[in-house]
């Protein structure tokens, strides 16, 4: 079945989720994976959806018009076959916490250390906290270390960044207990 990624963003208010999911339910859509959260003052939804009767974006026609009329932005991405299936990742999961006075480039420089080494980021959240005069940036990142990468190596890269960016960084392995 054809799958689509649906992204919906709008000023946060009660009722967005019920409005969106009612539209999907009435339209005969299935929701597979989804993630929704408040970012700033916006509520953002990302959902993988499918509908047995719909195989192209054009067939959505005006399904989401009412949502757009209520000030939600709607974007549909057509997935390639198999694009709804997560690929298997192997390795050790590690968590990196970065926090400090806000400055440009914190996310980029940390991500670059990982991306340059082909390390997959599996989860990332950032939040600007603190007061306006002294904003504090907090980033929580999970990455999958390939077999030949030790957590101590990650720590050493981050140690350099700590000095460069003048932020605090901690790296720890994330143990999943299989029970």
């Amino acid at each position, binding site marked *: 079945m054809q799958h689509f990624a649906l992204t919906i963003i709008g000023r946060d208010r009660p009722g967005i989720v019920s409005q969106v999911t009612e539209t999907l339910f009435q339209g005969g859509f299935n929701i597979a*994976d989804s993630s929704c959260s408040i970012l700033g003052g916006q509520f953002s939804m990302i959902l993988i959806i499918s509908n047995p009767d719909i195989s192209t974006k054009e067939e959505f026609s005006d399904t989401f018009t009412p949502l757009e009329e209520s000030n939600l932005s709607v974007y549909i991405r057509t997935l390639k076959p198999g694009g709804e299936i997560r690929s298997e*990742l192997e390795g050790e999961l590690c968590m990196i916490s970065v926090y400090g006075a806000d400055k440009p480039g914190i996310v980029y420089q940390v991500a670059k250390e990982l991306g340059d080494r082909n390390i997959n980021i599996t989860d990332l959240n950032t939040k600007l906290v603190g007061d306006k005069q002294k904003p504090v940036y907090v980033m929580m990142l999970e990455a999958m270390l390939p077999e030949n990468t030790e957590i101590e190596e990650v720590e050493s890269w981050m140690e350099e960044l700590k000095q460069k960016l003048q932020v605090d960084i901690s790296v720890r392995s994330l*143990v*999943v*207990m299989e029970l």
Partner: protein
Amino acid sequence: MAVKEVLVYPDSRLKKNCAPIVSFDESVEQLLQDLVDTMVDAGHSVGIAAPQLGDLRRAAVVDVSKSKLGKKQENHGLLQMVNPEIIEKEGSQIVREGCMSVPEYTGNVTRFESIIIQFLDQNQQLQVIRAEGFEAIAIQHELDHLDGFLFLDRVSSLKTDLFRRKQK
């Protein structure tokens, strides 16, 4: 020796409150053996509870001594527990748990850091032990199964399980 099939949610037996074992007969010995065999066969598992095999009696086994991180900590090796009960608990720790009965998901769960449990062992002896760290987590997870709780009932956030699980 019998490796049993591990029930997977939504099997309703996983949500049942299990009954205390009143008479310690041969069927209990058999159950404990099945639990140990199935846990060992599952490879990655450090514990399993009777309801995961479809047996709604209060029994569970735990062995963290073979796991990569469990063996770094002090532990009691193989624990075979009948009518286990947590009688004291303290501290808290957060751990990301996965469960054989809920494949594909892991979630962050808060558990007590240290517990004292009492149970009847495989020789019908009353044991009272203190467990900490990984062993304490494993015991709490298995005891939850006896009350019909899955880690999904305790979780604060869900993550997709990124690990390739051992195939039988």
